[in-house]
């Protein structure tokens, strides 16, 4: 099984440690993983802004770049979801989109493909899980609270493998934090208010860390928390999962 590692642009530039943790996790479980160096961005920022035509060349290149891999794994639920849900739309009429079927968020991959049952390491902290929207509603990392389907949460399943960890979820466990890409700069007032509400609910769990599969949500909340001096830290879920590696 050959896995292509996709480290989306902003993770690359701002949160390389999430990429490193992902690589470590994959290596730990003996996966043959490679990182195609010509990768950049999935194109979601342009698509969500209403310029998906500008994302088309990226989709073409992406599909081509990862052709030789069985899976494409990314430490970013939203970017993985964009490839999975929107690439077929972008490549419509050109050729069959392969990456859409191969793409997985790292949580999904560890949980569903590798089906891991143990992880070394302990994390003696209280964490509040941030169920990011696209992880929940496009990738199915947990059961959307709106639906009447049996509850599950793949992020929590994985975190539970660590010793000494205390896992919480905020009230309104999968309400949006208000990032939404271009939304956060276009609808500033609502976006910030959503972020503040979300941070407060995370803090109310008593957690020291907010963790989730999406660095973009974490970046948004961290930006607000830092500006408003709110007492909580943000860390990508892979960094916790790889704590003993």
């Amino acid at each position, binding site marked *: 099984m050959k896995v292509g590692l996709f480290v989306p642009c902003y993770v*690359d*530039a701002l*949160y390389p440690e999430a990429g490193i943790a992902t690589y470590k996790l994959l290596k730990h479980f003996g996966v043959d993983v490679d990182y195609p160096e*010509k990768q*950049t961005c999935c194109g979601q920022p342009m698509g969500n802004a209403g310029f998906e035509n500008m994302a088309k060349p990226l989709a073409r290149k992406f599909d081509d770049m990862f052709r030789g891999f069985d899976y494409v794994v990314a430490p970013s639920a939203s970017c993985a979801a964009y490839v999975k849900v929107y690439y077929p739309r972008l490549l419509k009429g050109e050729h069959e989109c392969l990456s859409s079927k191969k793409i997985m968020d790292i949580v999904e991959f560890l949980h569903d493909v590798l089906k891991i049952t143990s992880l070394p390491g302990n994390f003696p902290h209280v964490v509040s899980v941030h169920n990011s929207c696209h992880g929940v509603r496009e990738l199915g990392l947990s059961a959307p609270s709106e639906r009447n389907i049996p509850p599950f949460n793949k992020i929590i399943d994985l975190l539970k493998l660590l010793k000494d960890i205390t896992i919480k979820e905020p009230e309104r466990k999968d309400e949006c934090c208000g990032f939404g890409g271009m939304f956060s700069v276009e609808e500033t*007032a609502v976006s910030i*208010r*959503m972020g503040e509400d979300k941070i407060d609910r995370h803090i109310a769990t008593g957690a020291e860390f907010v963790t989730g599969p999406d660095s973009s949500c974490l970046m*948004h909340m961290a930006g607000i928390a830092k500006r408003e001096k709110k007492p909580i830290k943000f860390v990508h879920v892979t960094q916790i999962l790889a704590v003993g590696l």
Partner: protein
Amino acid sequence: MSTEHSKKAALFNKDREKTTWHDQTFWSVRMKHDDVAHQLPEWEALREHASNIKKHTITHLADYLETFTSNLESRGVIVHWAKDADEFNAIVYGILKSHGVRKMVKSKSMLTEECEMNPYLEARGIDVVETDLGERIIQLLGQRPSHIVMPAIHLKREEVGRMFEEKGISHEKGNYDPTYLTRCARHHLREEFMNAEAGMTGCNFGVAKTGDIVVCTNEGNADMTTSMPKLHIVSMGIEKLIPDYASLAVFQRLLCRCGTGQPTTTYTSHFRQARPGAEMHVVLVDNGRSDTLANPEHWESLKCIRCGACMNTCPVYRRSGGYSYSYFIPGPIGVNLGMLHDARKYAGNVSACSLCLSCDNVCPAEVVPGSQIYVWRQMLNSIGKADPMKEVMSMGMKVLFDSPMLYQTALKFAPFINRVPEQLTKIGSLNPWGIGHAMPEFAKKSFHQLWKQGKVK
């Protein structure tokens, strides 16, 4: 970088307490939805059926309309066909005029809002009296609905109470207890029901096979509206049609559970013909629905049953209020319906979505309004409504991301941005992100660089 919606939303958010209250009010309705949804093991099957029944009916609409109207006509109901709002208003006025009607009581109909019927009739001397309590309150205040199911929910009891005092509807000065105010409205409206010469209802569902007009209310105002006057006019958008009673059971079960979290509306009334000695008219309205039907990307918006669930769950609606949207229907479905109605006029609402897709999962008819907003955004540029700043940013990203070389060079220099003094990043016109966020820090070395240097292990 701001839109019509974002500007109004910013004003709304200035009142922090009211925003909190508005958010919590609608979140509690969303919670009630979840409770009743979880009481039915067949919930997801109902949603799927609702979607499929609507898809079928909408794509066989002309046939079903023929069955429906011949059933109605066989029992003496007079059917009218209105291609747009103007025709609709003229038809209604024509009926009222020929009956010498001066006062018409009316239960809730979003279609009449869509057609702006009330001002049209009022300008021609007809006293139109809304009888749903919320609708009546905003009518007396000269406002428009801020929500399609709970139209006056943005008002506090004091605002309603003071207006009732001014209008002579309530008499105990300073008594703003909702029970008291509701009693006062009951007395006030009872008089109107007794004196009106005509009653108008909307239509939640039209049943083709039987020719039933089905109207759902909690207050019983549609029934009061049609029980006394000798003339009943139904305003009905053609997308309200469903095939039969088996289909109706599906929608009846979903409508109120999604709308208010109740297991049913108090009244689910079926009208097949005029009551003894009375006359019944049904005005069928297209007003752009046939254009929607032909729209390959958005035709499924016609599945909407106007329950309001997408508004209640929408984190943006809850924190910006109905009046931040320029179309008369707010929230996720309102953004869509506004675009279908007049894309140029209502493009300013398309920003009101973080693409969280909660609405897609809550919608009883699987309209997926959130995913549809993504699609609407793609056409803004073609109608000249895209934000030029966003285009520049997207273009910049395209140039950067299309070239791995350029991208990697940028990564090398990005950490220098960390040195921009924080005060400078707060200038919103230069950096909208900085209005509420501290800047994220670029890593000293990107993943790319670390990988190249063999430091990823």
